[in-house]
């Protein structure tokens, strides 16, 4: 829910409560005021009548006596300390022939030694008759307020929240890699100023951390690669000296270990760089061409392992990917398919490659993996613990896919290892396999 809407709703709620209480107050106030005025009027009337009695004379037809009752009462019936009182209630109004709200005021006087009780009454508007009027006027006030709150809420929030929205836009376009600190718009609202200060500090810190991490990776790479290069060079030189057979074996083993070290290191550095998003796709790359190139560069290896390659590659498929990464992705996948290839019973090893606008499927015959296929994307996980690969190729592949928002899936089915990459994330990779127009399907279902 939008902030403005929330504010408006809250205000509306508060207004409703205030108006209800206010309505009640107004209602009771009016009711009390009307009674008060009437009581005072009648007390004055009673006083006038009492005066008339004192003066003497016949006032029977006088207008003051129209609704008055005069009675002499014994002394012991005179209430002590009370000069007058009033009662309210419904009573029959013969003039209007209906039951109406009746106010009766009774006053006590002592005139010339006699005690009088003078009672006058009148009909006043009933409080129930007032209620609809009160409710009605408050309804209109509420409606007016609502309209005003909605309109002003929209306008004022637009004005007040403008700096906040500008900050949001700036933050959304913030890139860790950018060299310059972000410049948030100035604002006079102290909360937004605090927010902006906080964001500026935070993004500066993030940028610094990113930079130092990047520097660390590069330094680590630099500092480790140089000694490795020295050792490798020394071994190269040592190999050419006059050495015995057992020394040769030792050197070879060192060479092997060094090779692994160097590969692990460069792969990890690459993974870090990928995680830091250092490779941005500047323009779409023609993956069809790269796929053909990758296949042809591995053609000899396939031939050596007597592998049969079946391809279905559409022309001119462009994907948003850094060219070097695309190259790496494809060669890792193809070399995996070659390396872990094992012929299935009764036929040679097979490799299927299908590249369509939707995605890429690479499948190869091979032994059943000893760990769940999803785990093979993790670093240093190997389907076959005995193999001498370092098990980082697929981690790199997945990282590249994640980076490009491709959906990747690995499964093992009917003796086939199938890696599916969907270029359009809404099309899940496994779905792609079902739409595949390849001889693959016939192989899958023998």
């Amino acid at each position, binding site marked *: 829910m939008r902030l403005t809407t929330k504010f408006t709703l809250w205000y509306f709620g508060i207004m409703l409560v205030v108006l209800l209480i206010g309505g009640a107050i107004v209602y009771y106030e009016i009711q009390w005021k009307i009674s008060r005025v009437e009581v005072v009027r009648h007390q004055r009337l009673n006083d006038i009548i009492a005066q008339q009695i004192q003066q003497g004379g016949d006032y029977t037809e006088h207008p003051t006596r129209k609704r008055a009752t005069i009675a002499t009462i014994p002394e012991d019936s005179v209430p002590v300390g009370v000069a007058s009182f009033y009662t309210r209630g419904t009573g029959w109004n013969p003039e209007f022939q209906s039951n109406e709200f009746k106010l009766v005021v009774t006053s006590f006087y002592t005139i010339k030694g006699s005690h009088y009780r003078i009672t006058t009454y009148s009909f006043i508007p009933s409080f129930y008759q007032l209620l609809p009027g009160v409710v009605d006027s408050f309804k209109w006030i509420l409606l007016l307020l609502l309209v005003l709150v909605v309109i002003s809420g929209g306008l004022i929030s637009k004005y007040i929240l403008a700096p906040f929205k500008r900050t949001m836009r700036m933050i959304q376009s913030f890139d860790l890699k950018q060299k310059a600190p972000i410049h948030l718009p100035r604002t006079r609202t102290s909360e937004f100023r605090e927010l902006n200060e906080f964001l500026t500090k935070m993004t500066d810190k993030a940028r610094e951390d990113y930079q130092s991490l990047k520097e660390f990776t590069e330094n680590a790479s630099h500092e480790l690669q140089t000694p490795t*290069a020295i050792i*490798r060079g020394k071994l190269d030189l040592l190999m050419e000296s006059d050495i015995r057979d057992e020394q*040769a*074996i030792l050197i070879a083993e060192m060479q*092997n270990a060094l090779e692994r070290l160097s590969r692990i290191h460069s792969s990890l550095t690459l993974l870090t760089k990928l995680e830091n998003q250092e490779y941005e796709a500047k323009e779409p790359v023609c993956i069809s061409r790269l796929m053909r190139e990758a296949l042809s560069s591995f053609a000899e290896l396939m031939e050596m392992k007597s592998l049969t390659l079946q391809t279905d590659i559409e022309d001119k498929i462009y994907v948003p990917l850094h060219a070097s990464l695309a190259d790496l992705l494809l060669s890792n996948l193809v070399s995996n398919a070659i*390396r872990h290839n094992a012929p299935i019973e009764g036929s040679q090893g097979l490799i299927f490659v299908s590249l369509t606008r939707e995605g890429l499927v690479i499948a190869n015959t091979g032994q059943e993996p000893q760990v769940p296929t999803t785990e093979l994307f993790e670093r240093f996980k190997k389907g076959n613990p005995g193999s001498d690969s370092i098990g980082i*190729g697929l981690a790199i592949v997945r990282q590249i896919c994640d980076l490009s928002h491709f959906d990747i899936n690995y499964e093992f089915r009917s003796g086939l290892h199938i890696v599916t990459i969907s270029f359009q994330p809404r099309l899940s990779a496994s779905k792609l396999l079902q739409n595949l127009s390849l001889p693959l399907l016939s192989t899958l279902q023998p």
Partner: protein
Amino acid sequence: MKVLIIEDNQELARNIHDFLGREGYICETSETLEGAKEKLGFFQYDCILLDIGLPDGNGISLLNLIRAEHKESNVLIISAKNALDDKIIGLEKGADDYITKPFHLAELHARIRAVYRRKNLGGASIVEFNEISLNTDTFEARINETLLDTTPKEFDLLLYFLVNKNRVLSRQAIAAHLWGDYTDNLANFDFVYQHVKNLRRKISNAGGMDYISTVYGLGYKFNSHKQE
């Protein structure tokens, strides 16, 4: 061939110096940018090996000077960073090739030769040894006049052997040369073995001498002194 090695790490510089020295190259080393500038002021070099991370600055800055005053020199950048930017900038600024640490010395040598062939031999891109001749433009390999039916990788391998004659080439070095880095899986030496085996067979079938021999435990060697 005269080579200037600009590299701040003495051990690495000495490795390169020793390796190339055996090839008969005259090598000089400089550990700093300043020293390199001084040397470049006095002498001409056929090839300059340039490390990017130097104590007194970035090696890339030297490229402008080299390109202005040493048009004939080949420049090979040596970098430990393997940062794509460095590579692109280096090549744009006029470097001829780029090699990442840790490299095999034989690989470095092959790169130096390749750059040298491209630039200095004016199109006559033929590498010859006795009866073997390789045309690096057309990728044709001949024994005497017989055309060898080699695959691209076999051609590459033979060229690598010819450039690094009488050197022990480890299987790792050959694998790295043929398939490059980053292909985690392809330190697969069976393939190296297969390639070498096929190559030897093809040369022998065409009537060439079998110069390539196995070095126990280590790899292979192209013996130029081999006599029948």
